């Protein structure tokens, strides 16, 4: 463990997790605090702008990027439970501001600060034991943006393998796109679905009880198919496994989520338990 004293971290909770899976954000906070971070949550944040950027609507994407830069003005780390949002900030913003030198340097600086959760835990904090008591047979799906965009391949696997109750199994084609692709899944839903089906086949072939990933987007697509067909495997975000799993709401989650119909460790709408 690297740090002496608390490490200030700003949480970028992502619009998707905020609206659909607050449990993922809660889990992220818990894990960060467990390893000595003081977590700040800038409440003016919204979306990184990826949907606009990826669909070629750069004017709107730039407005989002400006907003993001205003929401995270301080120094220090920004951590997010999403490989694709982190990649957007790191690689998308410099493209958006390539003709605006002052903004470009701000964009680059914020790109240096942002980390995806598993990357932050392993590469920055040097975590080797996630101190999670999750148990079950788990397989891991590489999100394209986490793996190819940020180059994060080993960190999530290392963490998963270090959880004593986790039996980790690699699926075939773990690095193959799940077909979500944001706007792609809306524009070409049939192709998207075909890709998701192939992914789910590979997941089922492992016999795992859980499929996890560092991106909620992938889990929406994978989980949506699992839920529709009722396959016996449960999608769960990596942060939730690291936080200690489902059905065991932490103190924070327990009071905060009281009144919320489901335990925090649940990807909403992705049932099939």
């Amino acid at each position, binding site marked *: 463990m690297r740090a002496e004293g608390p490490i200030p971290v700003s949480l970028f909770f992502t619009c998707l997790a905020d609206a659909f899976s607050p449990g993922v954000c809660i889990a992220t906070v818990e894990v960060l605090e467990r390893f000595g971070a003081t977590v700040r949550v800038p*409440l003016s944040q919204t979306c990184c702008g990826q949907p606009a950027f990826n669909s070629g609507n750069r004017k709107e994407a730039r407005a989002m990027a400006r907003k993001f830069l205003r929401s995270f003005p301080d120094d220090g780390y920004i951590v997010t439970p999403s490989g694709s949002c982190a990649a957007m900030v790191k690689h998308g913003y410099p493209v958006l501001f390539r003709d605006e030198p002052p903004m470009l340097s701000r964009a680059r600086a914020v790109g240096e600060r942002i980390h995806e959760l598993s990357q932050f835990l392993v590469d920055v904090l040097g975590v080797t034991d996630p101190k999670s008591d999750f148990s079950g047979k788990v397989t891991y799906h590489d999100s394209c943006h986490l793996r190819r965009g940020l180059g994060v391949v080993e960190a999530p696997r290392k963490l998963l393998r270090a959880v004593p109750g986790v039996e980790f199994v690699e699926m075939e084609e773990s690095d193959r796109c799940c077909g979500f692709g944001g706007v792609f899944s809306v524009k070409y839903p049939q192709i998207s679905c075909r890709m998701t089906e192939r992914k789910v086949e590979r997941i089922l072939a492992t016999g795992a009880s859980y499929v996890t990933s560092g991106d909620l987007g992938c889990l929406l697509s994978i989980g949506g198919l699992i839920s529709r067909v009722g396959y016996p495997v449960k999608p769960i975000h990596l942060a939730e496994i690291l936080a200690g799993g489902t059905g065991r709401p932490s103190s924070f989650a327990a009071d905060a989520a009281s009144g919320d119909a489901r335990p925090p460790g649940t990807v909403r709408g992705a049932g099939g338990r």
Partner: protein
Amino acid sequence: MELNANAFGRNARKALHDKTLQEALGRTTGRFLAHRDAAIAAFPEFEATRERASRIKQDALDHLDAYLARFIAEAEQRGAIVHVARDAAQAREIAARIARDEGVTLAVKSKSMASEEISFNEALQGAGVTVVESDLGEFIIQLAGEAPSHIIAPAVHKTREEISRLFERHLGEPRTDSIPELVGMARRHLRAKFLSAGMGVSGGNFLVADTGSVVLVTNEGNGRMGTILPRVHLAVVGIEKIIPRMADLPTFLRLLPRSASGQAISSYVSIVTGTRRAGDPEGPERVHLLLLDCGRSAILEGKYRAILKCVRCAACLNVCPVYQSVGGHAYGWVYSGPIGAVLTPLLVGLPEAGPLPDASTLCGACADVCPVKIPLPDFLLELRSDAREQGWKTPGEIAAMKGYAGVMKRAGLLEAIERIAGVLGQFFTKGKGISGLPYPFSGWTERRDFPAPAARPFRKLWKIKRGVTR
């Protein structure tokens, strides 16, 4: 070749329901990929070679005028006649004129994507010339009256049963399901053509500036017969295929077959340098080189220059999950997969190929395998942005994006919307997934559920628990 890239969505849906195609795609792309991975793993210099190839191509493109001038001078000195075509119409005219002037009535053709771009066969037929495709795959689809669906395996979408039926109908051969027998039938048929054709037509993988040579990399001997047996040889090649020096060629010969089919080396490499010289035992008496600009100069001027580095290895197709799902015909023109999604709109214009840049999840697998390091996903993103700037986005999408940005600019507004959505979501779904969304999201929920919004979003929970307002 006929252009219908705008029908991508419709073509794709058809392809998804085509069982034969689906099987063939899985089989072939899987095999190419496995071979490629093994070949790259056994080639420790891959990264360094790739880097070098990328730099050589970049240099060639940065000084294309000079290298092209050199190529033309060297080729002419060795007896070749060089023609440069501005666009497809001019290229067809030149091709037809060459055939007429040379008194050709039968031409055998092999290995050329570029000629597909200009509808070469139709041009020659218009000049009274019969064109026979001589590569096995091309020969098959010519009999079927179809277009290629893969850069290096043009008939990947055909089963052996279909092929046997075609041979029965067009060549009068007996039905068989033995591949060697089918190959034998095609060979017998083609040999006769090679011997009687007045002109051999080829493409070209590389144009070597310092020797004026055209280089052909093939796995079938046909390409070689086509360049040697007929009296006249015509090569149809894009101007971007230039490499500066013969000394650069080995770099590409190492990369191309490994990336394409996973072979360490291709079966044949033909280097055609000018006409037959006195004392040469073989070779064409006349060599014509038809160099296609056809939009390439324009690409060279802009931000997409690097797309012209492409060596047409098809590695990006094989690895692309979208190509694997829908095959090559869905892309509606000569080039398919990620390279097609970028190159087609650049060559024919976004209005003619608007859907292609959107036909990708931006997963990045293509950029990982591209032997000349073309940033394909970045280019797809740029093209999507061009589409917005040039006014090719639908009013619906623009309105949606404006609405999205309007909401996301204000955290308070987002929170209010989330609250309403949360209440409605819980009310309608009872905490389960949503199984039917309205248009334009209805496709999403056809076979997948969508999560119901949380009753209390995280921002709310955080405020309650931590009492923080910032």
